[in-house]
């Protein structure tokens, strides 16, 4: 093996230090092309993965003239072409290591995607280590910038490829840098820009993925022509970075993260440390193209302008006027205001003037993401198929509209899409971006890849003799076990499907599962974490088939005292698979005395004892309003909607699962104190409980929140003559809680492991490995603790395990949000055809309205008492009693009060004629494969007629239109139709 050695000297910034590194140049690096005979002869440099790339590359030989494209990561624009590269139409790509290094330094997220692409066996992407190849290594010349040197390296490598592979393979350099392209052509290399290359492929869909180049391209001029009136400078230029840093240093500018008001996209706050207060920014022109989450530099406006908040909004609005803004000072997230100032116009003006007002002069760090939403409805332009410009409306109100170009407008209209932002220059009102894909909540809905499916056991799966012979696996087939919904039970025995027997660490299947983290449950649909054959067959503990399981075996006294706990892998044969309903029916039917039913009853009595004991310890019984839909099998429209009923059987199963989880948590923590994956539930802080306490005290209820036990007791005592009152208080309490999270035991101290809701010092997830990846990890830990299996290397790496835990939390939260959004979407579809009057409870009082909760459907929404724009109006809020009153009348609303509301939906074009007390609520719908998404293009409105206690119809006051600018997002408007005390 020939080795030559050169020294590369690098100086590092900061403390200038000379670093000398060895740099080996070699002649045994394969070019990766199958047509090349010289490289193949050497012992192949790339292992299994690479061999596959070579095989695929055979196509290069077979289809002569198939191009090898070498993308260049020169500009950030080019980096974002990753969307294009991920498209299967682009293939046979050589990635130079110099390109990879640049990508890695500039954008780690993109680098990771590239990496995934290169290791994807289905794609013909090859990484060529040009920096270590004897013929392609380029030494930096005197006076040459690193960028120029890299460009030269890319050209040298391309030329080498061309001469190496000979004339019958066309090597094409794809670059967006004109200079580089020119030089390449001068040197006799085939070079093209991405756009022209993609155009040559003649696939119109691909062109949308090409990032629009902003450097005075033809296409951009078209845009301006279309909107000639807008061809003026709308925003002021951002200050150069040097000026910003200087300004920050001498205190003229203030740095902070920009947060846009959720209820009013024209108002933003910048939390500034240098002032110690939040700076308010009014209007888009003052926000100066900053997005929510950007780190910006802000200049304070002179103090006499601090009042002019409203004029700024008016200036800027134009086509956004139709927005209905909830008064910002009552918004949930109006920052740093524990008690939102409200009621009269005078007081709200005071509160504004006390806050500094500023404008954005520069953006220090962009927080540009991909955003989900849909296109603004527009007529199809003449000559469809050509380039059309459309405005994209994000689901998140805080994001401005984004202008995109597309060649497939017809496809995209009425669909939920994701758009990435590319640029926003001073001339255009809206940022420009490009269309990406169709995912939301970052949930992977793609089908499983072939590599993943290849990891599955051969089907149909049956019990193999090896499994039986395995001394670590106990044969429990003779035991009478039965399953109720997921797990399998017997007296003192809980079996969980042995998923880890099929999902081995390090396989593509495992990686995919760990990425997905959890299954996502949508209404009438499920996005699986593991492929169907596993979830529905091999790991499903069905009746009368032999299945592999992981068992927890307890020996218990009739008083539910645990004498011993044992864990083992096992083989089981369930004798019955029941649903919760069936199990409940069996238990309730006193005529049945078969062994199965007796077992069920015994288990139930044990579970009750365990439950009581747990509650005594201080576990909280919280409540949430889970709803159940009945879905029409053909149209997928919901037929009926109701609150999910919790049966004793559910509670029984839950009890045993909790017990298993807790004892498994203890076991794994004992064996692996530093690398166990546990779940904790942090105690809520005083501030979080504040709204609950305020509400409770307004109705004369005193809650003790000093500990979970005290809270549980006072919740139990929270009763009055209203039967729903207790549940309502519990629902409110649930909302004050923190989220339970997964964590790695080495990261925290023992006292922080506490699970507040369950009042357990340790908790983990063990019982649902099919749908949660956390459980898979815990299964592996437990197997290692029992010395059945070796501990996978992941657990030896603290930071990596923490990363896995963080990902699980992220996925878990997203899954929850998605299923909530799915429920909301279906609620909306349901109300489309069913306007109705129903009973609702007031859960929160605002200055210009209140929030109602509809127990029957588990939904909530705001009700406006004043027309839009009027913040506060003539209603007076009584903070102490949580009551809003209209002075001079006896009309008042108090928290927890029962009101009758009317709910109705109306289509977007149909402006409601008369509403005066109206509230809107926008739903975030979820990306489902609902191709008929346009059915959601609607709003729900309500007519109202307030009645006072005497059931007198109050006169309709002002009229205001409610107009939805949100496409594909429904709104449910509520109105009070009458209220009454119970």
């Amino acid at each position, binding site marked *: *093996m020939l*080795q030559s*050695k050169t*020294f590369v000297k690098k100086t590092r910034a900061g*403390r200038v*230090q*000379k*670093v*000398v*590194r*060895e*740099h*080996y*140049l*070699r002649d045994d690096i394969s070019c990766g092309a199958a047509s090349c005979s010289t490289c193949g002869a050497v012992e192949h*440099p*790339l*292992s299994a993965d*690479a061999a596959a790339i070579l095989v695929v590359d055979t196509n290069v030989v077979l289809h002569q003239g198939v191009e090898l494209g070498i993308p260049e990561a020169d500009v950030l624009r080019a980096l974002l072409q990753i969307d294009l590269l991920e498209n299967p139409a682009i293939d046979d790509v050589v990635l130079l*290591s110099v390109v*990879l290094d640049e990508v890695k330094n500039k954008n780690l997220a993109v680098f990771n995607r590239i*990496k995934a692409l*290169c*290791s994807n066996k289905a794609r013909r992407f090859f*990484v060529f*280590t040009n*920096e*270590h190849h004897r013929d392609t290594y380029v030494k930096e010349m005197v006076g040459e910038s690193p960028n120029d040197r890299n460009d030269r390296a890319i050209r040298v490598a391309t030329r080498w490829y061309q001469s190496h592979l000979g004339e019958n393979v066309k090597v094409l350099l794809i670059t967006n840098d004109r200079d580089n392209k020119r030089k390449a052509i001068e040197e006799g290399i085939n070079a093209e820009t991405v756009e022209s290359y993609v155009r040559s492929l003649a696939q119109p869909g691909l062109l949308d993925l090409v990032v629009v180049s902003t450097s005075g391209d033809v296409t951009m001029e078209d845009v301006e022509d279309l909107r000639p009136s807008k061809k003026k400078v709308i925003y002021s230029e951002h200050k150069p970075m040097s000026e910003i840093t200087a300004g920050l240093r001498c205190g003229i500018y203030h740095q902070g993260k920009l947060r846009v008001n959720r209820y009013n996209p024209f108002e933003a706050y910048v939390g500034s440390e240098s002032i110690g207060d939040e700076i308010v920014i009014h209007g888009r022109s003052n926000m100066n193209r900053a997005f929510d989450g950007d780190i910006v530099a802000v200049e304070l406006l002179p103090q006499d302008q601090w009042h002019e908040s409203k004029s700024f909004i008016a200036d800027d609005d134009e086509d956004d006027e139709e927005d209905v803004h909830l008064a910002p000072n009552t918004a949930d997230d109006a920052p740093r205001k524990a008690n939102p100032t409200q009621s009269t116009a005078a007081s709200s003006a005071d509160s504004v003037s006390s806050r500094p007002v500023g404008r954005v002069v520069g953006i220090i760090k962009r927080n540009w993401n991909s955003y989900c939403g849909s296109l603004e409805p527009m007529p199809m332009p003449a000559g469809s198929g050509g380039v059309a410009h459309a405005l994209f409306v994000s689901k998140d109100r805080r994001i401005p509209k984004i202008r995109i170009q597309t060649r497939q407008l017809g496809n995209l209209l009425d669909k939920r899409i994701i758009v990435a932002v590319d640029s926003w220059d001073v001339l255009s009102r809206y940022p420009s971006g490009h269309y990406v894909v169709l995912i939301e909540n970052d949930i992977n809905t793609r089908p499983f890849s072939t590599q993943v499916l290849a990891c599955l056991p051969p089907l149909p799966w049956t019990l193999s003799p090896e499994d039986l012979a395995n001394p670590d696996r106990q044969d429990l087939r003779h035991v009478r076990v039965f399953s109720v919904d997921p797990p399998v039970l017997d007296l003192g025995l809980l079996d969980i499907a042995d998923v880890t027997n099929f999902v081995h660490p390090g396989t593509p299947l495992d990686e995919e599962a760990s990425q997905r983290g959890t299954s996502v449950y949508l209404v009438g649909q499920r996005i699986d974490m593991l492929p169907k054959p596993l979830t529905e067959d091999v790991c499903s503990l069905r009746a009368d088939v032999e299945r592999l399981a992981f068992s927890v075996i307890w020996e218990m006294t009739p008083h539910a005292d645990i004498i011993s706990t044992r864990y083992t892998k096992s083989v089981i044969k369930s004798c019955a698979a029941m649903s919760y309903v069936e199990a409940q029916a069996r238990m309730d039917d006193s005529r049945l005395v078969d062994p199965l039913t007796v077992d069920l009853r015994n288990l139930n009595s044990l579970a009750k004892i365990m439950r009581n004991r747990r509650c005594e310890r201080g576990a909280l019984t919280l409540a949430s309003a889970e709803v159940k839909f009945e879905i029409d099998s053909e149209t997928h429209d919901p037929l009926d909607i109701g609150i999910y009923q919790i049966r004793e059987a559910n509670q029984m199963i839950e009890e045993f699962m909790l017990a298993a989880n807790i004892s498994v948590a203890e076991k794994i923590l004992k064996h692996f104190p530093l690398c166990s994956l546990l779940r904790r539930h942090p105690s809520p802080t005083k501030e979080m409980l504040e709204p609950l306490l305020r509400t409770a005290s307004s109705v004369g209820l005193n809650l003790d929140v000093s500990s979970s036990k005290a809270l549980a007791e006072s919740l139990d005592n929270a009763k009055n003559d209203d039967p729903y009152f207790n549940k309502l208080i519990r629902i409110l309490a649930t909302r004050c809680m923190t989220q339970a999270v997964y964590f790695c035991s080495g990261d925290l101290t023992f006292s922080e492991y506490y699970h507040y809701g369950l009042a357990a010092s340790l908790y983990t997830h063990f019982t649902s490995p099919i749908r949660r990846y956390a459980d898979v990890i815990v299964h592996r830990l437990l197997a290692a603790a029992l010395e059945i299996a070796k501990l996978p*290397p992941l657990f*030896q*790496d603290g*930071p*990596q395990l923490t990363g896995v835990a963080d990902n699980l939390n992220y996925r878990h939260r997203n899954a929850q949000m998605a299923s909530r959004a799915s429920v909301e979407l279906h609620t909306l579809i349901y109300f489309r055809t069913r306007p109705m009057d129903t009973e609702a409870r007031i859960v929160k009082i605002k200055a210009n309205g209140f929030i109602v909760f509809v127990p029957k459907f588990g939904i909530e929404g705001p009700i406006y008492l004043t027309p839009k724009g009027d913040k506060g109006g003539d209603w007076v809020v009584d903070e102490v009693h949580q009551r809003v009153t209209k002075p001079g009348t006896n009309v008042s609303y108090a928290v927890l009060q029962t009101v009758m509301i009317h709910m109705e939906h109306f289509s977007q074009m149909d402006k409601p004629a008369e509403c005066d007390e109206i509230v809107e609520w926008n739903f975030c719908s979820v990306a489902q494969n609902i191709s008929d998404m346009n059915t959601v293009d609607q709003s729900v409105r309500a007519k109202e007629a307030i009645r006072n206690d005497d059931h007198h119809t109050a006169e309709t006051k002002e009229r205001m239109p409610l107009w939805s600018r949100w496409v594909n997002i429904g709104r449910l408007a509520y109105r009070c139709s009458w209220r009454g005390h119970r």
Partner: protein
Amino acid sequence: MEYVNPLTGFRVDGRRPNEMRQLKGEVGVVARADGSALFEMGNTRVIAAVYGPREVQNKGQQVNSKDALVRCEYRMADFSTGDRRRKPKGDRRSTEISLVIRQTMEASILTHLMPRSQIDIFVQVLQADGGTRAACINAATLALADAGIPMRDIVTSCSADLNYIEDSAGGPDVTVGFLTKMDKVTLLQMDAKLPMDTFETVMDLAIEGCKAIANYIREVLLENTKRLECQRDH
């Protein structure tokens, strides 16, 4: 942190996971010493000088009059690393490395042939770029051979990282001293935690490296002998 690029299979400097850095050895670099050598492993460059066997200078140090006394002094040159910090003599680290080198060399020197005498080994690191311990031992071996001091075998050393094998985090450094012909390990140092099965592979790899170094050192010595022979003939 990845040590081996999973896409290309190369380490940052262009080596494969199981490849050693470039070796270079030279004997007779210090004219005054009885034996001397310069040894390079990549950018790590070490000079070693051997004095002796000679009379014991400080009788108090002599433990056993039947065996030769081996002394070793390890030092890093002030200019050996990027930041020019003065390295105090006799600090914890250099004392430890001195001891390690002394013990390793003692194991291979036939001390019983040289009673009441002392052998001094001076090792100076000229450039440090990782693996100094191993380079010092190799340089000392070469210098001892140059001085004509009887040894059981050539002791060579090589350090292997866990990272040579898998891109797992942490960079445990395993230094192994090895008597090639006798197949005996005289030194084993590890500064991190490693799972048992990984350790086995790392160990095997380090031993492979030691054997390769031994071959190279033999070559250098042979070359040197030939040169001396030529000089004598003329």
